[in-house]
């Protein structure tokens, strides 16, 4: 997948992957083994499901909200950041990469992906 190749070529990206919304398959590129990438897919998928539901609720309570539909989410740790747009995840070493640039690229490349499969 082109976006995974793009992402892994960006500074600071440790691993980039794609998970299916059904949770039955995943692909990845980068510094993880198969088992870790599978676990990362499970975690990212679970959070995505949860965030989609929450933004739908926010949208229901707040008319004309700019939150819904959800496009993705970011979790920042002391050294690493995980970001997800649509069904693509990316693990970033903060000291080596720019979250803004990575997110901008992901949002541009994945702007046509819909949430229908979620």
């Amino acid at each position: 997948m082109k976006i995974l190749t793009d992402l892994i070529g960006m500074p600071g990206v440790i691993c980039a992957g794609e998970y299916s919304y059904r949770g039955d398959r995943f692909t990845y590129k980068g510094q993880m083994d198969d088992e870790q990438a599978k676990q990362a897919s499970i975690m990212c998928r679970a959070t995505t499901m949860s965030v989609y539901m929450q933004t739908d609720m926010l949208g229901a309570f707040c008319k004309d909200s700019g939150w819904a539909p959800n496009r993705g989410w970011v979790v920042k740790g002391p050294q690493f950041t995980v970001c997800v747009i649509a069904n693509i995840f990316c693990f970033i070493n903060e000291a080596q990469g720019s979250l803004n640039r990575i997110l901008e690229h992901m949002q541009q490349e994945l702007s046509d992906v819909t949430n229908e499969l979620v």
Partner: protein
Amino acid sequence: MIKRVLALDGVLAICHFRDDGSFVEGYGMMPEDQMAGLAHFAHDYKRIVQGNTDQLSMFTGINGWTPPSGWVVHGQTHVVCSVGNIVCLLDEQASLSEVIQEMHEVSSW
């Protein structure tokens, strides 16, 4: 048949939803649109609980949590509980154990 759960004390509403989240039927003291909303919430929440129990099993290596049979959210005066594809809204007069046991039976039909 899910109507029989409504006969238990404290059960205010019961709804049945499909695996895709669509509303099948609902009974009780709630307008139909609210029941459909409850069913929609229960479906979403079921998937979240499934996701979290999968992760708990993954991180601990213990499988007793998966697959989850259901969930309960306990508020100050009301309880929402779900087993399989059935969700109930209860008030404080309900016996949670009795309701869940009945929901287990009904959901296995």
